[in-house]
């Protein structure tokens, strides 16, 4: 794989272009598969680097990651077109990378630096780049579900074939706003895709204290499909998301995709996970989404072990460079603290990257390879 350029700019466009789609492989080219691995590895590497920065005292507050859940944000966002919109949550860094956020901006955001996505106004994963079609999350969950419904309402009212996608954990399904959003989406048949990440715990609270019936089963009560997938299988997540996105784009309404996974780190870096039974942790360790996919690429898709290792090594190097850039970013000027409470004018959201080879010809200036190469 000629992954170096693609790694640097967070996409696989250059290499995908050169390769024909696999005749029997369906929707994904070889380059797409490399990209899926690359984005998952990038999320892992960036979060590991962020955790190190936290332990070095360079991250104010705490640190939150999505270790073990990489397949969900990467696989689902990979199905989107540039003009689709997202509300990305705190275990879903991979979706930011797929849409075009670079790790330096993510790490700078964690450190409260001027070059972070929010310029220091908000921290950790509470960001979204409006220029890349993302309205970022707040701490209250699942507040972005109604917001995603609203974006989908705008698409529907204007007759546009566009889709909104958002994420939430199973913990969020206990909150009334979850019901409000599901019901509104169902009643209005909105072009929205809900990604439900059941990572087994809401902070320390296990599934059996969260609900009696798996929340993905509630979808039919709202009048739309609920799909259950292995959240650690990036291609399974992609396939389910792609089908849901297609259904939404065709005017056939929302889908709830329930992804079974496991949060392999604490709720935050301050959480020692003492509530997780060791055997449960051990069992899920065997199902690491990156390891599983790397093995499958070698076993089923003609990748060599060296190629896979090279992708991971290149990602690591890229993330290390990004970390240096983030560390070089200044702290924001204190005067900025009182700026920007009110807007002077509305500004159109920009489009996100859409690295899936299927959309290559449709990518604009914020297309799959951007201009960063």
């Amino acid at each position, binding site marked *: 794989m000629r992954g170096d350029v693609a790694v640097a700019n967070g996409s696989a466009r250059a290499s995908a272009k050169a390769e024909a789609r696999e005749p029997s492989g369906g929707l994904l080219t070889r380059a797409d598969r490399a990209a899926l691995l690359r984005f998952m590895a990038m999320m892992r590497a960036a979060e590991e680097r962020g955790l190190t920065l936290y332990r070095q005292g360079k991250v104010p507050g705490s640190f939150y990651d999505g270790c073990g859940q990489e397949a969900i944000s990467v696989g689902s966002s990979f199905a989107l077109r540039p003009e689709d*919109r997202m*509300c990305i949550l705190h275990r879903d860094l991979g979706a930011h990378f797929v849409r075009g956020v670079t790790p330096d901006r993510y790490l700078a955001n964690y450190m409260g630096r001027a070059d972070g*996505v*929010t310029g220091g*106004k*908000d921290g950790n994963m*509470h*960001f*979204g780049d*409006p220029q890349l079609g993302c*309205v*970022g999350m*707040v*701490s*209250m969950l699942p*507040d*972005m*579900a*109604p*917001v*995603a*419904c*609203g*974006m*989908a*309402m*705008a*698409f*529907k*009212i204007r*007759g546009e074939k566009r889709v*909104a996608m958002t994420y939430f954990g199973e913990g969020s399904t206990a909150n*009334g*706003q979850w*019901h*409000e*959003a599901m*019901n*509104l989406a169902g*009643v*209005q048949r909105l072009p929205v895709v809900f990604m439900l990440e059941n990572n087994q715990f809401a902070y320390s609270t296990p599934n059996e204290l969260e609900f009696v019936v798996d929340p993905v089963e509630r979808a039919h009560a709202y009048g739309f499909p609920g799909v259950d997938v292995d959240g650690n299988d990036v291609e399974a997540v992609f396939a389910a998301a792609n089908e849901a996105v297609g259904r939404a784009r065709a005017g056939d309404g929302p889908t709830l995709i329930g992804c079974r996974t496991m949060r392999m780190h604490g709720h935050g870096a301050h959480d020692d996970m003492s509530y997780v039974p060791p055997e449960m942790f051990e069992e899920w360790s065997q199902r690491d989404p990156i390891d599983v996919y790397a093995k499958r690429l070698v076993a089923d898709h003609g990748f060599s072990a060296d190629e896979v290792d090279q992708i991971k090594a290149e990602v690591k190097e890229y993330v290390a460079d990004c970390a240096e850039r983030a560390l070089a970013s200044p702290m924001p000027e204190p005067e900025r603290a009182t700026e*920007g*409470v*009110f*807007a*002077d*004018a*509305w*500004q*159109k*959201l920009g489009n996100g990257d859409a690295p899936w080879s299927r959309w290559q010809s449709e990518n604009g200036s914020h297309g799959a390879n951007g201009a960063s190469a």
Partner: protein
Amino acid sequence: MTTTETAASRQPPAQTDEPREDITYLEAISEGLRDEMRRDETVICFGEDIGAFGGAFKVTDGFYEEFGAARVIDAPLAENAIIGAAVGAAAEGLKPVCEMQFADFIACGFDQLVNVAAKLHYRQGVAVPMVVRLPSGGGFSGGPFHSQNPEAWLLQSPGLKVVAPATAADAKGLLVSAIRDPNPVCFLEHKGLYRNVRDQVPEGEHAVPLGKARIAREGSEASVIAYGSSVPLALRAAEELGEDVEVVDLRSLCPLDTEAILASVRKTSKVMVAHEATRSCGVGAEVSALISEEAFEDLDAPIRRLTAPDVPIPFSPPLEQAVLPQLDDMKEALGELLGY
């Protein structure tokens, strides 16, 4: 949703030289909203029972027929979904005008309003041009859940603009400006004024800028700083007392026209702040603090506040009247201030 656009079939009446008949505060809100929907196809209405039914107070009566179900959207009974979806739609280029059936129910949508809508531009540079219409206020035995004046809740949330018209002309003009503003604007429309206030409202284009107070009555002996339902109350009290009292109608609570407040204080040197909302940490407290910080040496008397006491709004008429400021209360307080 089906798009049954009939906007073109209904045009505003032709302009004439004849003075227009006075219209009510309620009719003025409808007119401002209808005008903006005709002018700008990105304006949509979203709320409970606002479609074919025309809204609990009939503000959107006829809108469904004129603009269709795609732009006049009946929502499920879910205030957070209404406000949250409005945020998403606004970020994507629509201008949603949400109706809370009663202002009290903003409590059920408060999270989306204060945590998502209010903070989005500050945190992420995403502007959300949206209006939340809030039928507020008491005086009709609505009880503790259909009578509240929630402005202090809203004013403690940076990122929200808050307006509270007292006349029909301002009800139209402020709503038009609120719709055109790129920020979330809370529009407090006092239910007691809906059909009791009636005045000259300019036909066609009429926008009153947010953040500009109005001198409702010129005077030199004392100033009443008021908004919403307290403005007509102050005007009537001043008339009945026959005193030279100035009445400043704030119109906007955020942004607040501090210059107009201070100018009136410097002119009269005696001030009362009047509002129907409860007392502690209310607009009266803020305005009083502003005056003592900026115009202390211009004062000839302690600043007075005429407000509801810090209690829920009770149901039974004598209890409600004991809580909400009445004309006699205003006259008495004003008399004391003038006599200081």
